């Protein structure tokens, strides 16, 4: 079982995450897609750390987890706030970023 398989898994997970973000409308599901992408990146980091025998990758993975945890807090808060005002969790109903 070579380490390359982990990388393949990471890219599959990333692709699933990215596709989820692109095709789903529900903000919660989109959020899950983002988490999936973050964790696939973590998996890639850890794999590379293992490959090179260097701990830096694992350290970065921890950072990513911390940042992801903070992001989840903020992101879920925003989604809840939007849901309260708009009565919808669809990302397509929130297009105020338009210029």
């Amino acid at each position: 079982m070579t380490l390359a398989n982990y990388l393949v898994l990471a890219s599959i997970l990333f692709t699933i995450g990215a596709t989820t973000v692109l095709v789903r409308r529900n903000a919660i599901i989109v959020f899950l897609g983002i988490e999936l992408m973050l964790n696939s990146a973590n998996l890639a980091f850890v794999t590379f750390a293992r490959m090179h025998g260097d701990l830096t990758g694992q350290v970065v993975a921890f950072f990513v987890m911390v940042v992801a945890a903070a992001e989840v807090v903020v992101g879920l808060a925003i989604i809840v706030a939007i849901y309260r005002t708009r009565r919808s969790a669809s990302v397509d109903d929130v297009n105020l970023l338009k210029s």
Partner: protein
Amino acid sequence: MTLPAVLPVLAATEEHVTAQAADGVYSSAWLLVAIPLVSAAVLLLAGRRTDRWGHWLGVLASAASFVVGASILLTMLGQPDEERVRDLHLFSWIPAGEFTLDAGMRVDPLSMTFVLLVTFVGTLIHVYSVAYMEHDRDRRRFFAYLNLFVAAMLLLVLADSYLLLFVGWEGVGLASYLLIGFWNHEMPNSVAAKKAFVANRVGDVGMIIAIGLMFATFGATDFETVFAGSPAASEGLLTATGLMLLLAATGKSAQFPLQSWLGDAMAGPTPVSALIHAATMVTAGVYLVVRSGPVYAGAPTALLVVAIVGAFTLLFGAIIGTAKDDIKKALAASTMSQIGYMMLAAGLGPIGYAFAIFHLLTHGFFKAGMFLGAGSVMHGMDDDVNMRRYGALSGLMKVTWITFGLGWLAILGVPPFSGFWSKDKIIESAFATNDGHGWQPWVFGLVALVGAGITAFYMSRLFFMTFHGRRRWSDGHGRSDVDADAPVRHPHESPALMTWPMIVLAVGSVALGGLLTIGDAFAGWLEPVTGHVEHHEPVLPIWLIMALTLVLVAAGAFLAWRQYGAAPVAVVAPRGSVLTRAARRDLYQDDVNEALLMRPGQYLTRSLVFGDRQVVDGAATGLARTVAGSGELVRRLQNGFVRSYAATMVLGVVVLAAVVLAFQL
């Protein structure tokens, strides 16, 4: 002082007299300019409050200038030649670092000749205008402009540098413009004023270039420095300067090729035509050439061109004069032709300078007198200028008839009237010019000779058509010698305020030439400026030239008598020969100008405007439109949908990854 008798060619034998500082009465020369200028300012600024007495203030200002001028003249006459050239320093005009130019006045016999001519004839014409313009509600403004003109003209002739001369030069141009268009409520008058203004600006370009050349060559523009440096300067430069000065002179003096404005300038009130467009302003070009004698001394080619322009205009104006039925335009053509004589004389070099100025002086008297006579005739004929509707006025306007007749004899060059002495001298000098070119004396001499004959013809035509022959108007009782529907006129002699100036000018036309010729008085008087010149023998004997001139003059006058005095004059101008039709249209000068300059100029400006709109503006607005358009396109991407932003990001990452991989593999 003395010329070696063996020297075959005429030459200036003495240096031009160097100027001395002005003292005594000379130091009041600035008053000459200041008095009419202040009067003009008062009349213009005080407005309608001065309407009641404004015209007399104008007369007074002009007369005061004349008194100052006369007192300077008397002082000058009492002094020897070498003390007659004075420089009056006025103030530091342009102190610009290393270049300083002082405003000053050059009081010498040449400028004093002009001062006396301008103020004397000017004052007479002011007096005449009081009556002539009596019923014009803007008479005060008219006198303000006349005074402005006198001031500018005096500044022009008194200036001691080309730059100050240029100020006066523009001043007379402005006054001329204002006065031609004095009745500007009628379109043709304002068009004529604009035409004169534009033609003069073309000449002014020459003046500006000439001043620039002097500044570049001598580092100064005052007469003293320029004339002192001229002998050492290169001939090419002097020729260029001379030609540019000539261009300026052709504009102001209505010489070929810039002469077309003078005929239209007759749209102004007749006193204006007499003062500005006959006696004084239009002779400024001659003054310029004579004053610049030292420059031309080093530029024989430029001098030759001056003579050619003069000779050409002489014939040109004379031919136009033979066909004009408008009395003022006929006189204008005559002015053009006579100034051609002066230019020709000036172009002959030092031998001609004195005669150019002499003819200018006598011409100023007789032509101004004739213009005033024409004004008097118009006054009696309800401002009709068509000579074909005149006739048989001699008995009804006796003073006008006699004074005009004296002017007529003077311009014909009948001895002993003024014109004889001056014009004959010019013809004689034209035959005497000789500096290596064998053709010159013959060509110039014959042109001047033939010109005298044509002059006699057209002036006699004018005289006979106006004062003699049949009555081609109706006296109100249905009586006319021609047709029943002739216009009704009540010709009458003009008031004394108009006749007296005419009488004085007529006396000048009779006596001035002879008086100033006694003992070569006038040539001697100008010597401090023009240098002393020994007369050169003409290619023909003098008696023969004189006899030929008189024969031609008599023939011209006789021909005119036969056609317009003895024979009936048609009320409607006959179709005439090709030459007559051409002369009626100013020998197609306007058409040529229009075809060669005006239309191409208009096309040029139009295409430039088109180019500006399409190319320059097009580039600017096109750029703006491109930016706006691409902004509009890119704006579509900002649709606010998070997923499409995410898709863009993914796409970007994929592309980046593809590029990185492509370059690494």
